[in-house]
């Protein structure tokens, strides 16, 4: 009976643990095997080749360009998201007419699948008959159609902008949670001491919001680094791999070009980066917990 009682929580947790572990560890084992072997395009393993697949990647100019683009993509989307989300959260935290409507509108992109969002934008940005071009022309802002997605110079920035747009709701949500945890008494006390709104923002809001900014930073970095549908559904990394990031390149390596060894190597590299991000996240959230 005593033993039964002790084992109860473990029995309750076991099924979920096994399922979650299986779906991560088994594929991971497969990836390690493929990445360290010579493999044909039908997926049959040949000889053990150690790190040869990683070496091929290191000399693949397209892949190296993809790493740089992944960096621009991640920094651009995450940075842009944080910069836009902070003032939006401050506004939504304040009292004004129509606030609940504004909140719903800001949250809307979160509710739509990224695939659908990307497909709609792809159509809206179509060069010949997209509604973006006709709308801008109607407003007199442009006179010739812009080929938004046919060239990397416009396609990639547009994709980053859409990435920012769909990341704002989650980030604003975290910031609103942080803002609501700051007690009004602090602001009242500061006001009595003669602090203006700017000083209050700088010495109360910003420092107390910092843990939430950190969490939003790390979580967004993880999500954006992994984000596949926006680029895949809009350009599939084209034209000529010029909008590829690591996830889309990985997908092409695996399912279009049949280079399974290199694709597995990319997966493992990304896995290592993600684990690093996650450990950073754990460190930050634990440190904040200790401070709180």
């Amino acid at each position, binding site marked *: 009976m005593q033993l039964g009682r*002790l084992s109860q*929580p*473990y029995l*309750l*947790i076991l*099924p*979920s643990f096994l399922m*979650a*572990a299986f*779906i*991560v560890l*088994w*594929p991971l084992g*497969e*990836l390690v095997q*493929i990445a360290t072997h010579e493999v044909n395009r039908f*997926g049959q393993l040949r000889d053990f080749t150690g790190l040869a697949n990683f070496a091929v990647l290191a000399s693949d100019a397209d892949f190296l360009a993809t790493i740089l683009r992944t960096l621009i993509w991640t920094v651009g989307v995450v940075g842009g998201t944080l910069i836009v989300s902070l003032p939006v959260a401050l*506004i939504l935290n304040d009292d*004004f*007419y*129509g606030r609940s409507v*504004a909140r719903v509108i*800001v*949250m*809307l992109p*979160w*509710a*739509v*699948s990224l*695939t659908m969002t990307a497909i*709609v934008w*792809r*159509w*809206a940005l179509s060069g*010949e*008959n997209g*509604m973006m071009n006709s709308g801008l*022309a*109607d407003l007199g802002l442009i006179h010739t159609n812009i080929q938004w997605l046919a060239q990397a110079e416009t396609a990639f920035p547009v994709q980053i902008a859409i990435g920012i747009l769909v990341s*704002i709701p989650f980030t604003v*949500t975290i910031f609103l*949670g942080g803002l609501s945890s700051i007690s009004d008494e602090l602001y009242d006390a500061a006001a009595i001491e003669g602090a203006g709104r700017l000083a209050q923002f700088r010495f109360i809001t910003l420092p107390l919001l910092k843990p939430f900014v950190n*969490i939003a930073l790390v979580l967004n970095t*993880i999500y954006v680094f*992994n984000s*596949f*549908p926006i680029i*895949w*559904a809009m350009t599939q990394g084209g034209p000529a791999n010029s909008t590829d990031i690591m*996830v889309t390149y*990985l997908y092409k390596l*695996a*399912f279009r070009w049949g280079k399974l060894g290199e*694709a*597995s190597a990319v*997966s493992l590299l*990304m*896995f290592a980066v*993600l684990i690093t991000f996650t450990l950073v996240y754990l460190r930050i*959230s634990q440190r904040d917990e200790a401070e709180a």
Partner: protein
Amino acid sequence: MSKLQRSILYWLLLSPLVVLVIFPFAVMFITAVKPATEVLQPSWWPSAPHWGNFVEMWQAAGFGPALVNSLYTAVVSTLLALAVSIPAAYGLSRYRFAGRGAVKQFLLISQMLSPIVLVLGLFRLAAALGLVDNLNAVVFIYAAFNIAFSVWMLQSYFATIPLDLEEAAWMEGASRAKTLRIVFLPLAIPAIVVTAIFTFINAWNEFVIALTMLRRQESYTLPIQIFSLVAGRYTVEWHYVMAAAFVATVPVAIVFAWLQRYLVRGLALGAVK
């Protein structure tokens, strides 16, 4: 500054964002009601709304079977995820035991791993088991990837349900199982429903697993079906695609907009506890 002045200022500041958020919905809707002959013309508004697109796309865009597949995968994977997550969340919120912290950290880490990184390994696994193109394999993968999120949400809510009531029931001599059924579960139902809806939406919107695992059109879910109407084609019937996207998106968006504050609360509680 009066409240009215502040409101005007705030709405002005928010207006660029509001326009960018509404724009895709407008594009979806306007294109969906354009007659076929006007879709490729550079005019914003249709000469007369053609509501028939919503009916025609059912056949033309293969909407019906994809809708059934999407409903099946989303519903069954949600039920499966809940069936294993509810006991786990109860265990985490009601017992103190060795390894509790480790389990929570494992959940957190597995939540960070997006399927895209593992997709090739998952495909090999499915191929080895002969489960490519099998909706049930997709169901299992969705459920497994949603466990971390479900357990996290559920246990943060469960922790807010006071123990007193359960303790009172134990005093009265009720067994742990009976207490669970009669006292705890009724109180936990709102949390379970909210978690179920978000798990459902995750599965409903998922892209890369379905794109990889489902190879024949008969097994496509909605995102893949609609994507297949657009990808690598010279002529895209955009009015049907947008009508299909609209019907696939708007009901879910409304439910989400209605429930998002619970998500906020759950995530915030989970982050603090």
